Structure formats: C-alpha cells, structure tokens
C-alpha cells in the first residue's frame, strides 16, 4: 500500500519536463487571489548545482471540467455528535452543500459551476481517485474544513486511455468533450488533450468530526456553521486563495468569505460572498470570454467585461526594484475595500525530486506586477505589506511564503498618489482617484523608504491566553506611548525628517466587529525628573475622531500636510522644551467583550513578568488625560511613529 517515491525515476521524469516545458503552452501567470502550485513549468538552470527555477502554476479547473461534479460521502449519517448539538442528518447536509456551491454558481459574471451529483461509500479519507468527494470523516485538527487538490506539475498532453491515478482504469477518453463518468464506474474521465500546469485533477472537501449545524440560531450560539464553512472550502476548491480582507472598512466589519478563518462569531456574515470573493471568482472564470463552452454567455449570465474593470500596475521600491508579494487593494467612495490582490510574479527553486528551495530574490522575482479586478467605478488604490497582519495570503500561497522569505514586507500602508508617488512622500494618505470604468494600466505604487519607531507590550501574545483580563481594564481611558524626540531626529542623516504619521496595532476579537475608538492622536508631552508625566491631549498635532481601527493589523493615522511641520517641530521645538512625541489612543467607554485589546502584534524582546511596563514607554490615564501612570493595564498595544528622512 505504501509506495515510496523513487528518486532515480525522478531524474528521468524531470529531464523530460525540462525539455518539453518550453515547447508547451505557456500558462498565464496570475498572482492575486488565485492559489498557486508547485510546478515544473518553464524550467531553467539556476546558479546552484542541482537546483533549477520554475514558474509557479495557477490552480484552476480546466473549462472542459466545468461543471465540476462532487459526490457526498454517506458513511456518516447523521454527521456530528456531541456538545449537546443535535446531529445533522445527511438529508439536511446535501442541500446545505449544494447551497454553498450555488453561492459561487450564481455569480452572473463567473462561469464556475460546481454541483453535488451523487454519493460515495468510502469509510476512510478521500483518495486520489478522480472522485471529487465531500467527506465528514476527518478527525480533529485545528482547521474545521479543508480542500485538498491534486494538480498537474506541468503542461501535459493527456492521451486516450491514460491511467493517471494508476488504479487500473483509464482516466482519459478521446470520445468525450467534457469531464464525465463516461464508463459509469463512479469516477470522472477527462477528455484527451493538453492541460496547463496547475490544472486540478481531483478535489476533495473535508470537514472534521465536530458538531455541525445549518440552523442560524445555533450558529449564533457558536456552533460551527456548515454553510459558511462549505462556501469557504469550495472557494479553495475552484482555485481561490485566502483573501486579505478581514473587514470591508468604513463602518462595515464584514470579512471576505475567503478571509482567513479564525473564529465562529462571523459565520452568518460569511454566508454571503464579499465583493472580493465575487471579483476573483469572476476574474478566474470570466463569463463571456469564450465562444463556446461554460465561458460563453448563456441565459442569466453577464459578461465579465460588462461589469468589471481590471486595474493593473507594478509595486516597487524607490529604486524600481519589484516588491513581490505586496498586497494591493481598492477602496470605493464609501471607504469600503472591494478587491485585493497579491502583487508580483516569482519563480521557485526546484530540484528533480520534488524538493523546493528559496533562492535570492534577484534570481526568483520576475516583476512586481498586479492585476486587481474591480466593479466599474472610482477607487483609491492602496498597498500594504503582506506580513501576516492580517494573516492573509501568506500561508496559502507559495508567493506569500516567498515574500516572507524575501523579507521586504515591512513598509508602510499608503495610497497611489499619481505623479507624487515616490519613496519619500510627504503625505502617505493622499490618494489620486482611479477612474476604473474600463481597464486601467500604469497604476504603479512605490513603497516608502522610512523608519518605524515602535514600542509594544511584550505581554502581547501571552495576553491572548487570558482575554478576560484584557477586556476588563481600559474602557473610557487613554493609553499613550512615548516616542523620544532624539530617536526621531536620529533618522534624519543631517537632512531633517518628515513625520508621516503613526501606526496603531488594532484588534477586535471578532472579524465582523468594528474596532472604533473615540479618538487617536499624535501629540507632545514630557516625563519630568520626578517621574510625573504630562501629555497635551488638548492641543494634538494630529487627531482623528473617531478612529476606526483595522482588523488585526496596523491602522495608520496619517499626518497629511502636517508631515513637514512635525519634522520641524521634532528638530527645533521639542528638544528645546524637553518634550517628546506621544501617541495616544482613547478607548470606548462601552465594554465590548468582542473588542478586548488593541494589538495582536508583538515585538522583538524578551519575556517580562506580568505587571511590568515595556521599557517605560507606555502610560495610562483613567481621568481623561489629567494624570498618567506607568502601570501596565494588561493591555495589548503596539504603537509607532513613521518617520522619513527629508
């Protein structure tokens, strides 16, 4: 039963791949929210012996296999049992699964089609068997659902009669034009022909053995929702990666359905597809782009080009070096994020045996290009680091992991500012609107060459383990972090500084909760020799009220046109007055158990015992800023000032 992969054979197969790849169809490289795959496409030698570089594949179903046929595993009926939750009979499971598929099927601009077409009696886990299985037999893991896909390693000509999975039965037929069970034995046969690297051959959706429900009231009580979980997994099932959108923005805390799964407070919201989910499913399977087959317009369809535009450009540093892996996003007039994408194309280091390598980015990175599908409209286009906050795409894409390895996802979130776009912008929050009523090219983003002067509570991550302690303290009070002015001026390299703004790490426990603070500000203050702290909250240098925090991420408070002035204050005024900058966040007077703290973001540092204040830089006020203490309120925080040389 166990079949080790033999390395000697691998050399042979790999040699063929290297020769044939260049002659095959070039697959369209598309980053963004499309899952990428290991591939042997366009293999080239690298400077390192035995290591080559290859394109990443794009995971998707070939048009000939749309509609995708799934089968429901019937060996567990009812599913789930325990914790007092009524078991769910399969008679209720099947329509819930089909409803999840229909969420995607019903997108008028996407031609993806997935359907539950029968059952399978498999007492174990799903196999590589050309049966797309929906299975409830997976034991406990930290992920309640998963989507496993078997994909082609390289562009391949599948010949009639080929037994791809080596079960003794042909998986390819020259007599059919679409994927179907042509011989009636229960598995799917593919039409003979050429298929691109990354083509999905088999997809199995697995759910772990826990209590499941489709009842909204039980979902609200915290029981896992089969519908929203299935929608997410079938999103993976047709090639979508995790979305970076944890909240829509403005006053809308709705996460994308393809947002990283994290809690069960948002499940009902995730039953409805987010505009980002719809845009990417449509971009990968665009209606009206084929003359025949599923991509040709039929009743009820709307052509992708009729409803969508594609904004494109490059992300680079000030020297023009591409930043692969950066997250680009579009906000509409109401401040809602409607779409996001991962920028850049990178290759992967590979060997002949299926191993992969991270090589220097000069070898692997091809460009920093992005494509962002948006409903036709007017947008601000922004870029933020793909840095695990929010957790975003890093874990589900090779490109994300490579971006982490390259180590350049440390820049400041900002907006496209047209001709003023540079590595030393005075005002990061200024955005030039992009009129995307047709596809728009050349929207190039240049990341900043700046410094983040930051402090955080080292209890940060530990505090995650006792949320009750965190949620009790801060309501209605102020937290201030001091940024010594000499550290600000040390950035200037003799040229003076621009204080571009501040970043506040913000974190509501539930995805759909808006982290709204009464105010945030950059102001000045002093720590006297006797230890008495004064913070000028009446005359802030920059203030936002209210201040809407981002979900599990840094939230910028841009200094805007005051940036140069703040630099002058740092250079000439504060040293004379013996003052420093203070970053102040005001907490809501209302206790909200879903909004316990400010930051999931830790810092580099050693473990400190409970009760210590981090490096003496944080201060706390319970009387609206009249008096301040250096006590540690057991509150997560991670604040910093963003400073650029002039």
């Amino acid at each position, binding site marked *: 039963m166990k079949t080790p992969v033999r390395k000697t054979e691998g050399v042979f197969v790999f040699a063929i791949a290297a020769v044939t790849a260049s002659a095959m169809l070039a697959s369209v490289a598309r980053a963004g929210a499309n899952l990428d795959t290991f591939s042997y496409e366009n293999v080239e030698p690298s400077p390192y012996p035995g290591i080559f570089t290859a394109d990443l594949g794009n995971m998707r179903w070939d048009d000939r296999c749309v509609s995708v046929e799934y089968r429901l595993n019937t060996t567990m009926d009812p599913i789930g049992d325990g914790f007092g939750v009524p078991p769910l009979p399969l008679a209720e499971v099947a329509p819930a699964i089909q409803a999840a598929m229909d969420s995607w099927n019903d997108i008028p601009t996407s031609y993806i089609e997935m359907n539950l077409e029968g059952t399978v009696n498999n007492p174990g886990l799903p196999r590589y068997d050309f049966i797309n299985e929906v299975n409830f037999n997976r034991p406990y893991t*930290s992920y309640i659902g998963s989507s496993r896909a078997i994909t082609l390693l390289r562009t391949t000509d599948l010949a009639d009669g080929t037994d791809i999975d080596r079960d003794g039965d042909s998986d390819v037929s020259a007599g059919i034009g679409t994927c179907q069970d042509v011989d009636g034995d229960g598995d799917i046969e593919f039409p003979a022909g050429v298929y691109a690297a990354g083509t999905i051959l088999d997809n199995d959706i697995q759910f772990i053995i826990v209590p499941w429900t489709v009842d909204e009231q039980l979902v609200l009580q915290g029981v896992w929702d089969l519908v929203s979980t299935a929608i997410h997994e079938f999103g993976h099932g047709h090639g979508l990666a995790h979305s970076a959108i944890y909240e829509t923005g403005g006053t809308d805390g709705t996460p994308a359905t393809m947002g990283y799964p*994290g809690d069960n407070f948002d499940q009902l919201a995730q039953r409805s597809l987010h505009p980002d989910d719809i845009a990417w499913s449509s971009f990968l399977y665009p209606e009206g782009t084929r003359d025949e087959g599923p991509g040709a317009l039929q009743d009820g369809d709307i052509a992708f080009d009729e409803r969508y535009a594609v904004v494109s450009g490059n992300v680079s540093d000030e020297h023009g070096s591409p930043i692969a892996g950066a997250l680009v996003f579009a906000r509409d007039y109401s401040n809602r994020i409607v779409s996001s994408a991962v920028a850049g194309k990178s290759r992967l280091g590979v060997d002949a045996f299926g191993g992969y390598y991270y090589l220097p980015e000069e070898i692997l990175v091809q460009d920093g290009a992005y494509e962002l599908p948006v409903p036709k409209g007017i947008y601000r286009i922004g870029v933020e680091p793909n840095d695990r906050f929010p957790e975003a795409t890093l874990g589900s894409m090779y490109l994300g992991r490579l971006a982490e390895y390259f180590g350049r996802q440390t820049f400041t979130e900002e907006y496209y500012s047209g001709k003023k776009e540079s590595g030393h912008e005075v005002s990061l929050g200024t955005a030039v609107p992009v009129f995307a009523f047709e596809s728009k090219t050349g929207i190039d983003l240049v990341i900043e060459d700046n410094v983040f002067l930051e402090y955080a509570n080292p209890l940060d991550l530990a505090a995650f383990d006792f949320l009750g302690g965190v949620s009790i303290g801060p309501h209605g009070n102020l937290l201030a972090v001091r940024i010594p002015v000499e550290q600000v001026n040390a950035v200037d390299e003799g040229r003076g500084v621009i204080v571009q703004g501040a970043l506040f790490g913000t974190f509501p426990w539930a995805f759909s909760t808006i982290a709204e603070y009464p105010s945030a500000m950059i102001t000045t203050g002093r720590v006297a020799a006797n230890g008495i702290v004064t913070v000028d909250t009446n005359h802030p240098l920059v203030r936002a009220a209210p201040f809407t925090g981002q979900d599990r991420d840094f939230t910028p408070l841009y200094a805007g046109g005051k940036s140069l002035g703040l630099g002058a204050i740092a250079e000439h005024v504060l040293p004379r007055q013996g003052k420093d900058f203070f970053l102040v966040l005001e907490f809501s007077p209302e206790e909200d158990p879903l909004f316990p703290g400010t930051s999931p973001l830790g810092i580099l540092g050693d473990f400190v015992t409970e009760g210590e204040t981090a490096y003496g830089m944080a201060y706390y006020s319970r009387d609206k800023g009249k008096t301040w203490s250096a006590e540690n309120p057991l509150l997560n925080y991670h604040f*910093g000032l963003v400073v650029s040389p002039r």
Partner: protein
Amino acid sequence: MKLWISTLALLASSGAWALPGSPPTLEALVQSADAIVFARARERESMWVDGNLLTRYKFAVEEDLLRGTLREVSVIVEGGVDVNRPIPVAVIVPHAPLFAQDQRVALILRRTDFPHKQDFVVAGDGRGAISLAEPAPASRQSVAPVGAREQVLARLQSIVNSSNNNSRSSSPQGPSGRHERSNSPSVGGAPPVKEAP
C-alpha cells in the same frame, strides 16, 4: 481499514486544543508538545498511503528544548509532490506546513505512531512550525534550561514576535531599523532559508 485507521490517528494527533476548531494558542501548543526543537530540513520523501500523498521531512536538530537528547526528527506532513508517476502531480493542502530544503525552523511536535513510531507531526497543523532567522544568535542558544516549558514558550514568543516584525524593530532597547530592502536572504530580517545547499 487498518491503514485508514492509522491515517486517521496520524491526522488526529496533530490536534492540541480543547474547543472544536478554535485556533490553538502558542502556549497550548507548547504545553501539549511531545518535542520542541530548533532544526534544519535535510531530507524529504513523499509516499502514497491509501490514496493519500504524505511527505516525511527529516530535520537535523540543532537544539532540543525539552529533553536535550534529540539529534534528528522525522515529521509527517499531508500533501507533497510525486514526480515519478507517468503524470507527475502536486498535492496541495492549503493549511499544511511546507518546508524548503535547508530551511531552519522551530518545530512544536506531537508524536504519531504512523507510519513509524519515530515520526512526529507538527502541532496545530502549520501553526507549530515557526521560521527561524539565520544564523541563530549565539546569545539565544542558552537562555532557557532544558525542559522548562514556560521559558521555552517565552523564547518561542520572542521568535514569533521578531519574525512578525521582520526589520520593523531592531532592538528591545529601543527602535528601530530603517525599512531597507534586503539584497540577500540574510539582510533585512529575511527569514529562514540558506541561499543554496
């Protein structure tokens, strides 16, 4: 059926928490770990087991934080790449950990009896694998006495925090590094992997 049960046991043993589906905390992973090591990926072998592709990575242990005795660990991961079939395939499991050749990582591990008694799985799926900067700072090598889980947790938290920040912060004494671009994998807080074998 036996293999199926064994495979279930393998997958089940990666869990480390009480509530269904709750993301495990780092502390929960550490408290339930059978082994915690700093190690480097050395070998990789993929195998089909009852229609499922599994990959066994062998790691050379640089430091065994709990017992101080492990020199090598083998870790089983779902998915992988099979180049030996007539039609070579990749098996993609979005949540499963992936390790590049020579990658240096901290691993929080649980024992599994399958395929071999000597094998481990990464606790909490990918959450128990943490990329390490390279080379290891000498000062961090001797911080925690072997076996003290609280101090192991503190070390891992420090690593998680620093990898979260990349070059954002340079020192616990104060801020902070310029957001400079890294020209090589060893600059700018770039995580884990050696340039070439």
